[in-house]
């Protein structure tokens, strides 16, 4: 016991020095208390045919929280060299994807996965990322900042910049009621980012949405495409898409193998996807079914961006895909004609929601 005393002394000394240093940089404790904290509930507007979003009790959305999240999302302050932000790989005009096959971080190193649309991301209930390795938006938001092939900094560095920023301390106070800029943490930054991401909801104004509400009529070719997509016609072939890309979100959020790669053995997949997360061999080569809303705006396609166009995507499905034991049984030779393939594509275009991509509340606030 006695022998611990010097250590204790050293620790107290260190702590004391740390405080000293802080105080030189930052204002006095409680420096934000004179800023009014009176957050206003954010009114999340959701299309009628969607379910309610599940929002964590400890991160209810407020106008101040969403606004702070939006600033952080667009601010390169979260990257090591101040060149990249979340928005660099998640561009509003591309439904929050980038236009690359695989994303490249601040050091110019390409990753192995394609950026994902953040449209309706708040409705995802079976995990985030192509392989589902992250459970909530609050946890997910912590990852890109320190990822060496993304923003490649440390949270300690990012938080120190935010604490010393002329506006952010006040913004954090308004959103979360902290008394002092020293109370700004990466967890609060992640909460704000998550709030902004939950606000990224379909507008309900795509041609598809308006047609099912009876406000407009789809063209005969779009209707044929829709009938094949949902297997609704006794004359046209089933394209089987709707089983996995089910309305209203145009995804079931499941992890499945849609036949992209040949694998004689399930251990042969180069990117094991969902199998890496569950540890089950039968899940190797499975990836998240992504939403098809705004799909015309998010090329290139698939987890590794291997298809440049929707034509290539449809050709893939029409071929029945590559063999692997766990290729989903609905990935079969569809026998669609050239005209039918075009009809399917014209239906996919009815899912374009430019009210969403042009929403001023989602744009760069700086």
């Amino acid at each position, binding site marked *: 016991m006695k022998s611990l005393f010097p250590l204790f002394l050293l620790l107290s000394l260190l702590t004391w020095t740390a405080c000293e240093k802080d105080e030189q940089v930052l204002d006095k404790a409680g420096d934000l208390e004179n800023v009014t904290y009176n957050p206003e509930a954010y009114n999340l507007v959701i299309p009628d045919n969607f379910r*309610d979003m599940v929002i964590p009790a400890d991160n209810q959305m407020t106008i101040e929280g969403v606004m702070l999240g939006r600033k952080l999302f667009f601010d390169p302050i979260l990257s090591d060299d101040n060149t990249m932000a979340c928005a660099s790989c998640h561009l509003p005009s591309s439904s929050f994807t980038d236009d690359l096959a695989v994303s490249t971080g601040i050091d110019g190193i390409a990753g192995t996965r394609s950026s994902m649309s953040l449209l309706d991301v708040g409705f995802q209930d079976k995990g985030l990322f192509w392989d589902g390795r992250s459970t909530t938006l609050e946890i997910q938001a912590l990852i890109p900042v320190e990822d060496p092939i993304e923003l490649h900094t440390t949270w300690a560095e990012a938080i120190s910049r935010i604490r010393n920023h002329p506006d952010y301390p006040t913004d954090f106070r308004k959103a979360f009621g902290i008394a002092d800029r020293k109370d700004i943490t990466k967890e609060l930054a992640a909460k704000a980012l998550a709030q902004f991401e939950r606000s990224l909801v379909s507008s309900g104004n795509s041609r598809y949405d308006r047609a099912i509400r009876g406000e407009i009529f789809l063209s005969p070719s779009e209707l044929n495409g829709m009938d094949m997509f*949902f297997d609704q016609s006794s004359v046209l072939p089933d394209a089987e898409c709707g089983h996995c890309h089910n309305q209203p979100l145009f995804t079931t959020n499941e992890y499945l193998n849609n036949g992209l790669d040949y694998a004689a053995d399930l251990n042969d997949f180069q990117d094991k996807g969902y199998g890496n997360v569950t540890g089950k061999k039968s899940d190797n080569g499975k990836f998240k079914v992504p939403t098809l809303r705004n799909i015309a705006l998010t090329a290139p396609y698939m987890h590794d961006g291997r298809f440049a166009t929707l034509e290539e995507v449809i050709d893939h499905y029409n071929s029945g895909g590559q063999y692997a034991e766990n290729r989903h049984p*609905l990935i079969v030779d569809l026998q669609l004609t050239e005209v039918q393939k075009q009809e399917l594509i014209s239906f996919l275009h009815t899912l374009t929601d430019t009210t969403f991509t042009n929403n001023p509340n989602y744009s760069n606030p700086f």
Partner: protein
Amino acid sequence: MKKITLFAVLFAFVATQYACKDDDDIVPASTTTEVALNFNAKYGADDLVLNSTYDYEGSGVKFSNLNFYISNVVLVKASDTDQTEILEIALIDFTTADGNKVVARNVPTGTYSGLKINIGVPSDLNRLPPTDFATTHPLGNDSQYWSAWDSYIFAKIEGAMDTLNAQIYDHGFLYHSGTDAANKEISINRNLELTADATGVLEFDFDLKALFNMNGTPLNIKDNPIVHDPNNLTITLNLMNNFNNALSLQ
């Protein structure tokens, strides 16, 4: 301050008293119990393990997905008219660790002569899409709903077959049942004594092999690999009827 504390304590006490009273009036705690319904997947005499190989009419077969809805589970007393619903709906899902188990709560104790289970989703619930339910509700799962039918998918059986016995499972198959007509009620006679001091346990065997019996001959999976057409329910109804033989109480 003291006054408030005293008042709060008093109030809490009175409230508790009332709460107990209430309970006694409605469901006396001493006369209800829980009943666990456990479904054990079988393939003939063997335990069924998903993604493992079995023989189907001389071909290798692996099942990758298996689930079905049970609904309107009632316990029946000696007279058939005396029925007690113990469970509205549950999805029995063999792909997750405990997905094959469900517990019915607040079940009145007593002596019962049997039970009835509906396989499927009753028509009133079948009219409500998954978005009307929380994602944690059995009906809140978008992947169990098929828009083209305006119906839940009552049962899913998916897998792949190795028709050449070459360890190549390239004949995928998928049987999805649905629409109101596909609901199937099953009655099981069994004397059950439910007491307050023990959870009742019902262990069911669910034999998938028995499900593929088409009036005496096994379904030709290779020729009928995908069955989800609401306008052609022959195979669907046959599969659903077979739950009668496939499901048994241990």
